[in-house]
């Protein structure tokens, strides 16, 4: 007899129209993968009958959620697949998967030796070693680790003045801004401060997305609970939670209840992506931007899959369109192919690059100075594959704003 019984993922609403199969980037490139319909609702009916119908090919799903965006019936297909991997998967995570997944544990270690790690990760023999022993593809450019974490920088340079502001928010920086790219966190603080918001950090853990994808559910659940406690504490002080990472945000808002079964209903309304937060503040007249007079840029916007799933891409484009010197092309919706740690795995590298091809081609056709994109893993993939720099919208805004004048206008 089975433990589980009813799916909360609306799977019986599936009409078998198979539209999900037409948007699945993996199915088009990897014949070993059955696709979202077969792995999701079709498979689920049979898994409910007998767990033996769990199929190992579900691991090829990169959880991009494009199937969910396309589904006319509201079936949470990717959740079904991820949930099935959690419930029925029998393999324990490999060392490599655990390394890739533990972004917060590898981060501190690597950060302390950042110059050495970065140097050694970029050397061919080392990559070959990773390839052979861990199954991390050697053709992959590894994310660089920063020598000073964002948190360390913030405590030393920024924390002191934050209480002086009239309005306050809590910043969920995520692993990426902390370990790999503190400049993003610094831009965030600069922008928020200019608009008159004091920025505060919380006792945050990794959102857990990589742990979920790699089957480390107990660890992810533990972290989720710690994060939600931190959010509640922040909200009790009247501080909304603002994030910069699309995927972290999706995990905090949607995957906690769906996949980890951790209730976030009391806080999820108070978690905003920074673009959403700023758009609403500017549109309502709550804050006023002063843009640099001579700022000009030709950019192309790539909407990350998870941003599309969250339905929040419109805030980024509307916000970027407010910048007077911005010439913005919206790229056709396509997956870049990396999907977090997925593209780092040796077995997925080729498929990952094939999936990204239409996006890379559309970027080449648009010929922008840079690509605007909220997602850190898309950034790695696009920069590695096209050579075009990718900027987070927050960094673009930090650059386009006249920070001093904005600050004068909003902090007075």
């Amino acid at each position, binding site marked *: *007899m089975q433990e589980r019984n009813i799916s909360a993922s609306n799977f*019986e609403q599936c009409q078998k129209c198979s539209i999900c199969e037409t948007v699945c980037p993996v199915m088009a490139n990897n014949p070993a993968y059955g696709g979202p319909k077969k792995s999701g*609702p079709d498979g689920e009916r049979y898994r409910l*009958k007998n767990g033996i*119908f769990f199929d190992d090919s579900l691991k090829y799903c990169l959880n991009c959620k494009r199937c969910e965006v396309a589904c006319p*019936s509201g079936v949470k297909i990717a959740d079904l697949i991820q949930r099935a991997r959690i419930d029925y998967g029998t393999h324990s995570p490999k060392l490599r998967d655990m390394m890739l997944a533990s972004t917060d544990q590898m981060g501190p270690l690597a950060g302390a030796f950042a110059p050495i790690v970065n140097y050694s990760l970029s050397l061919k023999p080392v990559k070959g070693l990773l390839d052979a022993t861990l199954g991390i593809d050697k053709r992959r450019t590894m994310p660089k680790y920063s020598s000073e974490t964002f948190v360390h920088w913030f405590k030393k340079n920024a924390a002191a003045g934050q209480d002086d502001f009239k309005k306050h928010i809590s910043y969920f920086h995520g692993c990426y801004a902390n370990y790999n790219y503190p400049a993003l966190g610094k831009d965030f603080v600069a922008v928020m401060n200019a608009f008159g918001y004091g920025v505060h950090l919380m006792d945050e853990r990794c959102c857990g997305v990589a742990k979920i994808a790699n089957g480390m559910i107990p660890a992810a659940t533990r972290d989720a609970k710690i994060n939600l406690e931190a959010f509640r504490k922040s909200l009790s002080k009247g501080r909304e939670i603002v994030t910069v990472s699309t995927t972290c945000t999706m995990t905090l808002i949607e995957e906690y209840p769906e996949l980890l079964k951790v209730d976030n209903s009391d806080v999820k309304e108070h978690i905003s992506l920074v673009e959403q937060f700023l758009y609403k503040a500017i549109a309502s007249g709550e804050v006023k931007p002063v843009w640099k007079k001579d700022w000009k840029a030709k950019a192309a916007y790539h909407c990350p899959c998870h941003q599309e799933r969250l339905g929040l891409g419109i805030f980024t484009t509307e916000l970027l369109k407010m910048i007077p010197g911005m010439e913005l092309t919206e790229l056709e919706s396509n997956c870049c192919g990396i999907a977090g740690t997925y593209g780092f795995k040796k077995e997925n590298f080729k498929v990952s690059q094939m999936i990204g091809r239409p996006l890379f081609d559309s970027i080449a056709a648009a010929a922008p100075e840079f690509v605007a994109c909220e997602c850190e893993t898309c950034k790695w993939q696009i920069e590695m594959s096209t050579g075009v720099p990718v900027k987070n919208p927050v960094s673009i805004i930090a650059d386009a704003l006249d920070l001093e004048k904005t600050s004068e206008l909003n902090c007075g």
Partner: protein
Amino acid sequence: MPLNNDFDVIIIGGGITGAGTARDCAMRGLKVLLVERHDIATGATGRNHGLLHSGARYAVKDSESAEECIRENKILRSIAAACVEDTGGLFITLPEDEDAGFGLDYQKKFIEACIKAGIEARAISPAEARAMEPSVNPSLIGAVVVPDGSVDPFRLCAANVTDAAMHGAKILSYTEFLDFIREGDTILGVRVLDTRTGQKAEYRAPVTVNAAGIWGHGIAEKAGVHIGMYPAKGALLVFGHRVNNVVINRCRKSADGDILVPGDSVTVIGTTSTKVPFEECDNMEVTPDEVRLLLREGCALCPALADTRILRAYAGVRPLVADDSDPTGRSISRGIVCLDHETRDGVKGFVSITGGKLMTYRLMAELATDAVCRKLAVHKRCQTAETPLPGSADGRIETVSKHFEGIATLGQKGAAGRQGDLAGKIRFDSEEDKQLVCECEQVTLGEIKYAVAELGVHSLSDLRRRTRVGMGTCQGTLCIRKAAKALAIALGDPSLEGKLAADYLDERWKGMRPVGWGDTLREMEFMQRVYKYEKPYSYDEV
């Protein structure tokens, strides 16, 4: 009349009783002919819950039926492993049952009656019941665990037919009984019509067995004997997926819609009981009132049903032997009626086997075969209780799946679940054979070819009964085309494809109409669009 039209026994009816009788007769060395006007398992056999009764349902009112059930339950578990699933069953007591006089006092009486009939029954707490079956109505006040299970009647019937054929029986489906060949007071054989070719034929045997379910009434009339039969319609609903994994019953006097059975990939609620005229038995329509009633009662057993998609509705007719004292049809024993018309009516060479239920088919077959053997002075012991049916020697999905080369695909595991160890006969030589034709039910082209070659398939409905093709969430919207093509080719006449598909669409449509709202209506619109507009049916492009 050529000699090969002579048999020891002719059985009319390819339901489970006829199939079981054919098997038993053939295993006892008789030369058997079975005639069925449609496909096997098309009457009441294929139109019930698929409940492997523990007998608990009958324990209080009809201990004889209860004892029969639990004996046959144990036998089926051992001889038909590929057709049954050991789900276990619950009899739950709800707060409102207390007011109706079926509270926990009744539960006590129920358990005692079960134990007396030899049915293992024990009370568990509501919390234990919720843990055992999370979908059960959480407000239950008591529950009893019994050894219920589910049984796939199509598979069970096909396995009996297959085994009969392996023991030399001749099986003629799509062969309609027209009349008896009669000399004085002796039945000498039957005149039949091949409904596919329109050809008539005569077959002779010293004994003819009437095993035609409710239609046995009319067949008996043709022999000039009267069996007071009583058609009791029972309607059921199929839900889109398995909502429960344990059979849920109401612990009260039998009533409408109080059994919820998980069977294969779906859940079935039933049933109702209405007396219907004989002329309606050939074409049952489920009424809106029946749907409403089943949904209401189903939700009392399992509240999640209120939000679960209903795939279709269907109805069957129980072949009850009439008892004029109770108009509802529920009080009479579902007891077995085996009539030797020579002693009863003075008509020689004619036996009727009727009454009973799916659960007791084997016992019915044994009694009928005993009667046949007495007439033929054959002294052979019945072996159907010990000999596993084809596919059931070691029919568990887990074991069968190991026999496929490499890692079993979903389609191969699906086949293992349906065909038991006979799945080993399916050829997966080419990639094409491994491809799924029906994605909802994980049916491969290889399995379809096997079914056509070995299991007597002539239409897509026949194929559905052997393989579940088109039985899933889309009700064939995505697979009818592919399946019709595969079937037409396997039957050796590709031009049949359009007709096969059109017939099947009408058949699917019939079951969907009574539940045509919500997601089912969405699917119906999609189906119309796929077959009428986006890709109007054409034979060349499939």
